[in-house]
């Protein structure tokens, strides 16, 4: 074997072992676990083929989690990405108090989601909370934001958008600042309107950034459930249960490893599908420098 091959492998080896041991290996064992029953007491796990998956298909909580996660993703992703773009456009121009505005947008990013959840929990409290206070000024009555099936999930979405938008703004801001200024001068000479310039020049040039931000937003829509743990524990009546939270409950509160493994396989398949969609389909339409 060539010397460089040995050296190369040796340099990569520590990272490779850690990566495989804690990403690929658990993914593989999860897949195997999903084909077996949960061991109970002295009863060892028994091979059941795809039974866990057919059981899952008739589990109403699973469908609730899928539905909630879809709604959660379809609101948080566009809302945080569009807000991030607007924020970046705002602080990229010379508005008064630009540094302050940028700081205001970005600060929630530095807070732990747990801290954010605690603060917002207080806002949502019936009677005492900020929201009921503000509604009170307009003659509104008390409302149990997190206890009502109709408002609990929107309340979670609001928290996630508040936390994430500023983070994504940073990447748009970086892209906007890297844009050559002569483009704008050219457009001005040609008599292009601002809206037209934005639509025809800025937005296409921001496509790689948008793809990057989208990938992160999609991952977060399935990964970030800290606030659910603190604020609602999936309730009321499973109205805020998300896929990863259900995995956590199945694995560490019911200790049902078969269910947890089956759910994880579904989540992994979903993430894989989304990755393929983003890089395969969307990626082709993106122009990289």
């Amino acid at each position, binding site marked *: 074997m060539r010397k460089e091959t040995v050296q190369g492998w040796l340099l990569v080896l520590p990272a490779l072992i850690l990566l495989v041991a804690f990403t690929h290996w658990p993914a593989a064992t999860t897949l195997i676990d999903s084909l077996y029953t949960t061991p109970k007491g002295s009863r060892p796990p028994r091979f059941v083929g795809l039974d866990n998956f057919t059981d899952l298909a008739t589990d109403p909580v699973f469908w609730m989690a899928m539905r909630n996660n879809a709604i959660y993703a379809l609101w948080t992703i566009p809302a945080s990405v569009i807000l991030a773009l607007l924020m970046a456009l705002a602080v990229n121009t010379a508005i008064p108090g630009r540094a*302050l505005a940028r700081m205001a947008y970005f600060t929630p990013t530095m807070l732990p989601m747990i801290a954010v959840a605690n603060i917002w929990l207080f806002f949502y409290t019936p009677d005492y909370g900020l929201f009921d206070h503000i509604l009170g000024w307009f003659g509104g009555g008390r409302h149990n934001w997190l206890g009502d099936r109709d408002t609990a999930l929107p309340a979670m979405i609001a928290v996630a958008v508040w936390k994430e938008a500023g983070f994504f703004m940073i990447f748009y801001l970086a892209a906007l600042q890297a844009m050559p200024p002569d483009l704008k001068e050219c457009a001005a000479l040609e008599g292009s309107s601002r809206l037209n310039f934005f639509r025809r020049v800025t937005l296409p040039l921001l496509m790689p950034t948008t793809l990057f931000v989208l990938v992160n937003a999609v991952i977060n829509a399935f990964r970030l459930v800290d606030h659910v743990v603190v604020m609602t524990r999936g309730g009321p009546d499973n109205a805020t249960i998300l896929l990863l939270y259900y995995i956590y409950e199945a694995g560490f509160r019911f200790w049902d490893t078969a269910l947890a493994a089956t759910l994880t396989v579904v989540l992994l398949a979903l993430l894989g599908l989304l990755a393929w969609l983003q890089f395969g389909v969307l990626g082709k339409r993106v122009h990289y420098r």
Partner: protein
Amino acid sequence: MRIPTRSLEILGAWILAVLWVLPLLYALWTAFHPGEYATRFSLTAPLTLENFRNAWAAAPFARYFLNTTILVTLILVAQFAVCTPAAFAFARMEFAGRNVLFAIMLMQLMVMPDVLLVGNYRTMAKLGLVDTILAIALPYLGSAFGIFLLRQTFLTVPQQLDDAARLEGCTLLGRLWRVYVPLARPTYIAYGLVSVSYHWNNFLWPLVITNSVNTRPLTVGLSIFASTDQGIDWSIITAATLMTSAPLLVAFLLFQRQFVQSFMRAGIR
């Protein structure tokens, strides 16, 4: 026509900024005033540190701070040590299986350890590591993100510098240490900041893998503190919340420029 749209834009930007900072200001108000002012605004409300004193006394926050500090330091040092050689090999060496290995590694960008709670818990149980700080850190040490980021930076190092060092008789590791690492300093700072803030704030995996005061990081400690003994004393909970976020928040406010630039650098690929 132009001026009104412009002022509207500025107004919009400011409304958004106020909306974004309001929750934090509200938290600050609650934490620094006596409990009865938590939901009542008055300019004459007395300032107090009592809430912070009570929170600090009610739970072992000193220990939680220590645990989190050990955790983020351990992760940071190990990530640098593990990712640097791998990134160098992927950037500047030709070896059999390189592209396959690189592809295997990149898969972690989409499937993060956070999702694999159940599988990783079992591994830790087999290794006898449940409820240790090492177990919180282990799944994150081989970081595809870190390797990718450093590789991109190493690729921009001029080959001539590398060749010159080689002619001077510098060994492989010597070149990595003397040429590549110093030139990649901004990337290390960027990656370090991203890593520290991620793991300072990480919650779900530490919640699952720890079950005692001596290992719990701040986030888990805070969630237990807020959910159990405090009932609904919002002033104390808010004080504890701000206390646990304070180190990062203060560091961010002091070094805002570096933070923002680092996050940007970590994002541009």
